[in-house]
């Protein structure tokens, strides 16, 4: 099974085979279906959208219809090896609380988000003076679900403040490709950022 997107492949490369995975905002379930097939992973997707829930069930992906803003209190501590939040961090009400919750119910967290520090968004805001619209951020300011956008640097600072240890990170462009230039100037050229992290050990 070829992954539909390169970010899926990267996540697939990061997780250990046979892992228990909780996918927050799992959409149509394609990531979980890919991880189940390629890594023997199992677990659940959480999703609020009616149509997506139906797509998950059609695919045979375990899905629980719920609102992420209501938290993960129904899940016990350390229930999962990985808690994944793919392109959803920017749309939740309290991203910092959700990160904490991810590391309560999971051993490791994996987050992907659109990088607001990409040169094109900087250009649109800084030079054209308009809210950025791009392939990764297709909405207009008035109808966007993305209420907490951040840059790679912002995310790294939040991790530091929350005592979260970043284990791995990657950036890809809007076509989910990896290129050498992205590795050199990730916060300028990366459109989608991927992070794997865990709770930092006390020194």
């Amino acid at each position, binding site marked *: 099974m070829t992954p539909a997107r390169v970010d899926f492949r990267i996540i697939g490369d990061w997780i250990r085979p046979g892992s228990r995975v909780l996918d927050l905002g799992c959409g149509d379930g394609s990531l979980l279906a890919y991880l189940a097939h390629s890594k023997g992973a199992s677990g*659940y997707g959480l999703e609020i959208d009616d149509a997506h829930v*139906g797509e998950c*069930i059609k695919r045979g992906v*375990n899905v*629980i219809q719920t609102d992420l803003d209501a938290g993960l209190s*129904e899940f*016990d501590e350390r229930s999962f090896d990985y808690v994944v939040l793919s392109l959803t961090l920017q749309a939740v009400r309290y991203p910092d609380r959700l990160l904490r919750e991810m590391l309560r119910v999971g051993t490791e967290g994996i987050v992907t988000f659109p990088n607001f520090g990409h040169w094109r968004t900087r250009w649109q805001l800084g030079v054209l003076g308009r809210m950025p619209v791009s392939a990764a951020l297709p909405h207009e300011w008035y109808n966007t679900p993305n209420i907490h956008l951040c840059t790679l640097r912002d995310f790294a600072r939040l991790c530091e403040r929350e005592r979260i240890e970043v284990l791995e990170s990657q950036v890809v462009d809007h076509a989910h490709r990896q290129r050498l230039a992205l590795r050199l100037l990730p916060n300028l050229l990366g459109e989608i950022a991927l992070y794997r992290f865990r709770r930092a050990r006390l020194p």
Partner: protein
Amino acid sequence: MKPIPPDSVGLVTPARLRFAKPLVLASGGVLADYELVYETYGTLNAKASNAVLVCHALSGSHHVAGYHDESDKRPGWWEHHVGPGKSLDTRKFFVVACNNLGSCFGSTGPASINPASGRPYGPEFPMVTVGDWVASQARLADELGIGKWAAVVGGSLGGMQALQWAIDYPDRVAHAVIIAAAPKLTAQNIAFNEVARQAILTDPDFHEGRFYDHGTEPRRGLRIARMLGHITYLSDDIMHEKFGRGLRGEKLNFDYQVAFEVESYLRHQADSFVGRFDANTYLLMTKALDYFDPAGAADGGLAAALAAVKADTLVMAFTSDWRFAPARSREIVKALHDNDLNVSYAEIKASHGHDAFLMRIPRYVDIFTAYMDRVFAGLPS
């Protein structure tokens, strides 16, 4: 009457099986000999792997789909969901619907003749629990040659039976579909049931449950119980939508006759229930609901009670259901995922209240059908 629609199972005939082997009940009581009435739709495949059990709710029966007679005004109670091309597709599945013990629709119940006395059981009919029903259904499955259900499905009290099946017979249930149910009743739920029971028990025509011998029945009590029940099956929103403060007549009549549409509706529901439903059965069914609490038997709560479950499960709840609210279904979902079991949960937006599980709501149909398609695709071939 109108011709029977092509997506109906059509004309159906109930079947009846006698069980001479005593059934020991949770109460300690024993049914030495009993009969179960059931209907089946579709064809059991060669491996007997495509059988689906539909469990009924408080006032339901084995008549789930189709018509008994061409003159029937109404089909079975789940006609929306059972038939060719429907969620429980009778071209794919062999659907079995069993009338529960204690019912008044054919299986042995309080109105049946007690062989020990030669007169109706009445109050001598032992109390039955959800677990007792499941045990009796398992015997029916044995007789039908069904070792393992492809799915056990039910709404409300029927959903509780599906859950109990998954607990009591983990190797005999591949999938459970639990709709608009709860892992146990709340104090408020029990309170409503108690008011309904008191209405029946204090009716002078109840005669301590021996009303058959008096050629009467506690009509007043049963009517009030049914009216109360109907209020809890509907939501405030749907009552507003259906009736509002609409009047039956032109103006207020300043007496105790029907003034508002909602009064007329409740009286009609009550009238059509009396003569069709047995007061002793109503008492038994509400007690089975009150007593249902699989977690109560297990030290460590619901997750511990479900530790033996192997079935994959679909749980569905309806947003406006306040009798068994979505939060109650989520308790079942949590206990299942705490055991690392395959479970999916869909919360269906519906204004109909608890009764939504009986309705044809497009998203409900879509989710139910998609899940049953997966069940069918996974059948051992």
